[in-house]
């Protein structure tokens, strides 16, 4: 539904066309199956959706992903305002406000006509506990059961106790769905979905790994746009095919000398959620400056263990174990040292010249740590860095001019370092 913002491309790529079709189909299928009686689950983004493939007729929707799409389609602020009118503070996460606004207004103005009403809400606290609070609102409003997965935060790598605790909770979730839906769980089907997810993530890593090439054949904006089906089509063959096609296509464009930022002069890293309302604008303005945000913590973490940027393979044995071990993959459930470890790898591997920390008041869990991260990146890694204010989904809280004043200052710093003979990346 969101087009690739790749600047410099003459026309929409095959993978971008496929992406639009795929997301449209995912939402259509979701609505159709729901109206045909499927058991509908709303999940927080990191809930292991592959488990639902173990049932015959369970479909899932991801309100965060729907909110991102709404923001990308330009209705984020509109839906936020509806929630605010109902008394929800403008200081709450903008994903939540978009979703609450959408629900309160019966799906009006949503690019997908909202989401089908759930039979079960499944949230967790690994990205943030606010997802639990957010889903609780619907639990109270509709009386829909709400299952919470408790995922301990990682200051060090996930330990055995936490791993078993998480895995046990997956079993609880399975029996809860069995009980509520009357359907039986078959582990071999879930294992198949996990295996497809792992394969898709390998292809995903091949795609975002291209950011190490110079010039880079991708921008982080591509990875933002193309991450959508990881959320809506998890555990499917078409997900594998999509990422394979995306990586192949990008490689072949590169072979033909087609680059998203012709004359790339600055290679940047973005830290925080994608600025969904700014993808096209920001990418083209940056391209005009010869700057390419090639890399983003938001997307390099997908499919990796905490502190790493590499794919975590599935050995084909225990699907619940693979899912449990990956539960801390996204940046938010990781401590500062782990976040920095992964970021340093990405900086080194992708030859990053500068880092943009997008301080996002809508997502405190991602942002409250960035000041120390920035200090470390500047002082210890010797890489220039700036902080700009962004709200990932509420464009009323973003000032393009203020952001670009700082971004341009970052580019000047990089230039100054170059002319003083210091290496682009320390």
């Amino acid at each position: 539904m969101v087009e690739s913002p790749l600047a410099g491309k003459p026309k929409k790529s095959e993978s971008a066309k496929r992406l639009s079709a795929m997301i449209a189909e995912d939402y259509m299928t979701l609505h159709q199956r729901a109206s045909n009686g499927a058991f509908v689950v709303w999940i927080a983004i990191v809930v292991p959706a592959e488990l639902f493939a173990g049932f015959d007729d369970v479909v899932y929707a991801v309100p965060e992903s729907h909110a991102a799409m709404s923001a990308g389609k330009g209705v984020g602020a509109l839906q936020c305002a509806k929630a605010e009118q109902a008394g929800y503070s403008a200081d709450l996460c903008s994903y939540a406000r978009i979703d609450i606004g959408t629900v309160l207004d019966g799906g009006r103005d949503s690019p997908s006509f909202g989401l089908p009403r759930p039979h079960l809400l499944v949230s967790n606290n690994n990205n943030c506990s606010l997802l639990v609070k957010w889903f609780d609102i619907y639990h109270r409003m509709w009386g829909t059961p709400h299952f919470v997965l408790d995922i301990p935060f990682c200051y060090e790598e996930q330990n055995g106790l936490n791993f078993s605790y998480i895995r046990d909770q997956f079993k609880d979730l399975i029996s809860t769905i069995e009980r509520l839906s009357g359907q039986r769980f078959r582990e071999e089907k879930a294992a198949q979905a996990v295996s497809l997810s792992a394969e898709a993530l390998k292809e995903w890593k091949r795609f975002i790994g291209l950011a190490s090439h110079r010039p880079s054949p991708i921008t982080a904006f591509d990875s933002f746009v193309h991450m959508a089906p990881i959320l809506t089509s998890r555990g499917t063959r078409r997900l594998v095919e999509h990422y394979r096609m995306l990586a192949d296509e990008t490689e072949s464009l590169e072979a033909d000398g087609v680059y998203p930022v012709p004359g790339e002069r600055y290679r940047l890293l973005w830290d925080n959620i994608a600025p969904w309302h700014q993808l096209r604008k920001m990418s083209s303005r940056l391209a005009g400056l010869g700057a390419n945000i090639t890399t983003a913590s938001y997307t390099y973490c997908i499919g990796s263990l905490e502190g790493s940027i590499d794919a975590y393979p599935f050995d084909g044995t225990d699907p619940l174990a693979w899912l449990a071990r990956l539960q801390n993959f996204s940046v938010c459930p990781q401590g500062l040292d782990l976040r920095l470890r992964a970021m340093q790898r990405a900086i080194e591997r992708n030859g990053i010249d500068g880092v943009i920390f997008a301080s996002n008041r809508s997502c405190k869990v991602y942002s409250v740590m960035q000041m120390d991260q920035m200090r470390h990146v500047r002082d210890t890694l010797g890489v220039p860095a700036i902080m700009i204010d962004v709200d990932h989904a509420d464009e009323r809280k973003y000032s393009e001019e203020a952001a670009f004043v700082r971004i341009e200052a970052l580019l000047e710093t990089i230039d100054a370092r170059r002319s003083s003979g210091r290496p682009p990346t320390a």
Partner: protein
Amino acid sequence: MGDILETLKRYRAEGSRLVGCFPLYGPLELFHSFGLTPVVLWGLGDGRGYYPASDAHVQGYACSVARALTGFVIEHGTALFDALFMYNACDTLRNLPEILSRALDSRGGHIPMFRLHLPAIPLDRAHAARYLEERLRGLVKALEEFTGRSFSGDAFMASATLYERRRSLCRGVMDLRARGGIPSARAARIIELGNHVEVAEHIAGLEEVVGSCSGLPGDARGVRVMAGGIQAPPLELLDAMDSSNLVTVADDFATMARTHLASVSPRPDPHSYYTELYLHHPPCSTLLPSADARLGHLVSRAKASGARGFILFGEKFCEYEYFEAPQLLAAMEREGVRTLFLEIAPEDRENLAQHVTRIEAFAEMLQDGSTGG
């Protein structure tokens, strides 16, 4: 509140080993049973100016509790605390441990940090109870290593007895407040003092207050209200409630009723004790499994106490409170309890006068529809 720093310095000079505990509901009894003095690091922001040290580490859109805690620990932590303790009370707090240790390192200091993950799912789910048991065992072991003492069931029982006594006395102060025997501001000051004052000393102070007010006649005159939020608001606002003839018959402050309405019979086994404490804890926006009970619990407390109004002091940027606020306020209104919502940022003194006016107007509105207490 002005002498928190002095109090802690005094303890330190007297040889106490202080553990600075992140809010909200840490296992204070356990630290105490090891001969340590736990203090809870909230209430540090009121006019104390600790933000500058925090501003280099935490953005201004984090709540004042987190920012004041950060600033306080950076500025005074090394001189005051032998250890820090944090649990997963909220997302902002869980981000702080490494920020603090880096900031302290850069000043040449270091404070050991104990951590606990408190299950965010009901403790009557078997693996949640098992998990808590394991984590508590780990904490006990870490404390044994830290203090060089072995865990003692008798010592734990004695500490738990003291804390239960304190909770019961705080309930006594709340009861006095409800009967008009003590103004809201004073009650808040006395109860919240317990965050920083050693438990035995606090108990002595509470006993004195409760004793001096015994024999008070029945109910207070005034309009009965309930007030809630994370911590009690600036005293000027509580004074405004008192002078507007509002009687706080019940509260839902995390620093007050949410902490002290808990009641657990002391026992030598920390696992059994804390399982019961957290399982039956008064509902709190940060204790995720208590969400189902919270609205009903608050509405029935308001009704049972005869409150005609409910004032919610929203802690600016505390999303835990804010996600629940609209449904909570609506539930109160449905039951005929009128509501007032005020957003409080303790460092924001400029809005105090405006808040006072709103409290006065709210009181007038309630009085118009009331025959009095």
